């Protein structure tokens, strides 16, 4: 009888431990998300927050594929690729969005080819800027996209 009670207690405390553990774990799932950079209202703050600097050398080895004219700013297809060596991340910025930093792709494994393709929202006609981190240096390139209907309206 005593033993049974003891078992229940042990089980109970184990379960409690698991719940506390889960509670502690939850915020950790977001630890990587850089709020300062992704909520920044201007490009220098976003770039410095994410990449440690807002200065990047312009490189035409970064190719940005995006439409010249986007009829619908809510869905603008953007592809970025580069033949720069040692690329560890590619970030995409829409220069006139309220929060300009849109996405950052971090290549954890060297097998990943410096290529990303996604669809972004653009509030108005602006530059799509791609920032590439290669080695310890930052490179960038830009492509202007004319937006006829903004994608962040309301």
């Amino acid at each position, binding site marked *: 009888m005593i033993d049974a009670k003891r078992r229940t207690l042990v089980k109970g405390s184990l379960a409690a431990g698991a719940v506390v553990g889960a509670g502690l774990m939850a915020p950790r799932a977001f630890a990587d998300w850089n709020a300062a950079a992704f909520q920044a209202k201007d490009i220098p703050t976003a770039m410095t927050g994410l990449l440690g600097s807002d200065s990047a050398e312009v490189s035409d080895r970064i190719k940005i594929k995006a439409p010249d004219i986007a009829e619908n700013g*809510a869905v603008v297809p953007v592809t970025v690729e580069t033949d720069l060596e040692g690329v560890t991340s590619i970030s995409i910025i829409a220069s006139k969005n309220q929060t300009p930093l849109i996405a950052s792709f971090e290549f954890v494994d060297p097998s990943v080819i410096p290529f990303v*393709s996604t669809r972004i929202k653009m509030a108005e006609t602006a530059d799509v800027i791609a920032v590439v981190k290669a080695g310890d240096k930052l490179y960038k390139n830009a492509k202007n996209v004319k937006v006829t209907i903004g994608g962040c309206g309301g």
Partner: protein
Amino acid sequence: MSDIKIRAKLEGDETTVKCLMSHPMETGLRKDSKTNEVIPAHFIREVVCKVKGAVVMKTSWSGGVSKNPYLSFKFKGGAVGDPIEIAWTDNTGESQSATAEISG
């Protein structure tokens, strides 16, 4: 039932992964045109891509990625049948993941 669709195809020594996720991607900046109330933010913040269980790419997003996000990336190597796993977590703590095998 996951709302992530993944296609991974091996061509030569490169695998191309294409992925579609189902998500509203609300920025938190938009107002409801009728009530004039701000629509709360609800967007994917992190996406983790794994090949054979190992993380190869981590991405962070703002609400600036379009609704029902599309993501494509490429990597060298990979073999037909290798599992590709894509997992996202959004700003409300919701998460989803899906796995697909590389096809030839």
